[in-house]
């Protein structure tokens, strides 16, 4: 093991790496919080791969619970949700330089959503299901009696969950982003890649449909 210390003292690049490692620690402590918000700033610090990764982890890993929740609702099972979130993080890391906005949350969830769609398309093509469009979803029937507040208030958690689960994917997504994560219409439009007007109409239809679903389940009891 003496070689270890010889190695440590005699190897030129080892000293450089030590320096990097120290700088990295300093940088990491400086970077917690919002001090550095974009990769542009990060570049000024001349970060190497590892510092870049630490910076990325500090910014993005705290958002994991929202990322996972969205993926889990969209993918409908844990295993796929895990795969999707891991892929999304790797992708986000690869494109971290392109993140210049101030909402890392919206940026990351946009990637999660896109990876979910890719995964769902792959999954559905294996099962010969063609479309993920909201158009394929059942529209809210007009003939139904208008849903009432009591039916919603009396719904069990399980029913709420099932009703949300039963929503078409695009509707489910806007409900999660709005009600669970509290995103603005503008942010949802960025995440989902649709105009703000579409976000508004999707939310409206999603809510009406949720109300109808809860009403129906109440009646079937």
């Amino acid at each position: 093991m003496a070689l270890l210390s010889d190695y440590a003292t005699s190897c030129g690049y080892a000293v450089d790496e030590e320096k990097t490692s120290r700088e990295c620690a300093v940088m990491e402590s400086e970077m917690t919080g919002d001090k550095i918000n974009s990769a542009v700033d990060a570049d000024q610090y001349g970060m190497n791969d590892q510092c870049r990764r630490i910076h990325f982890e500090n910014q993005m890993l705290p958002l994991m619970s929202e990322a996972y929740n969205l993926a889990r609702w969209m993918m409908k099972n844990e295993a796929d949700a895990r795969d999707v979130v891991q892929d999304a993080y790797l992708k986000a890391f690869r494109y971290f330089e392109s993140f210049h906005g101030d909402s890392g949350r919206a940026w990351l969830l946009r990637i999660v959503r896109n990876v979910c769609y890719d995964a769902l398309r792959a999954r559905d093509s294996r099962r010969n299901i063609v479309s993920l469009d909201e158009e394929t979803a059942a529209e809210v029937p007009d003939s139904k009696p208008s849903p009432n507040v009591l039916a919603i208030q009396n719904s069990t958690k399980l029913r709420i969950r099932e009703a949300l689960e039963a929503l078409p994917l695009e509707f489910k997504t806007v409900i999660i982003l709005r009600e669970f994560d509290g995103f603005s219409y503008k942010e949802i439009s960025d995440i989902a890649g649709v105009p703000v007007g579409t976000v508004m109409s999707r939310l409206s239809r999603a809510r009406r449909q949720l109300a109808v679903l809860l009403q129906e389940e109440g009646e079937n009891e």
Partner: protein
Amino acid sequence: MNCEEILTLLDAYFDNELDLAKTVAIEEQLRTCASCRSQYELRVALRSRLDDPDLRYAAPKDFADQIRKKLALSTRPTRKILSFPTIAWIPAAVAAAAVFGAFVYANIGRLLPTETPSLVAEVASDHIRSLIGTHLVDVESTDQHTVKPWFAGKVDFSPPVRDFADQGFKLVGGRLDYVRGKNVAVLVYRFKNQYVSLFICPERTPEAASEQKSFDYQGYNLVYWNANGLDCWAVSEAAPGALLEFVKIQQEEHS
């Protein structure tokens, strides 16, 4: 505005996304129209039912760690394929290598240590292997009085074993590993969701440097130091700061 127009804006109103003029118009309508009001109340009821932490899926335990590991693996340097311009340089490189070779030959005594394969790589790889496979520990115990005697007869020295759970580094166990073909004792600690492998073996020559050195290897951090005649390597995917803290605790214990 009629009821239909109100309905198209109702969600935006409910989500505070409307400008003042429209907000006022909608509020006026909600005061006067029972049907519009009931639509609004539906949304209030829905929101209050959706505002429930149980409806959110919690990420699996250790998931953040898995992602960290994947990220670390993704930053490993990739092997480059020789491109044509590179090939064009080969004759020059061969000539340079010949000059360098002659230089090395002339100075072989002085240069030899750096010619050995990277020990940093070997120690780090042992740690990485222990995380990937099932060989994290051979003896799993948080009790130093279980772990320490386990090494008796397996290594020709007695490694100092202490649990530092109260400082955040919980003893997980010990394992036997090989570095440079020799048995070394490895203590495994858990820090938050990460593992620290502490490699210990007797220093092999008296002139070994006692200076502490930090390295990083493929996203893993390593610290070497020498304490009381023992060579120590701490390896972890934990942040460099956390690892240095661990080293400090170990050194204070041994000094």
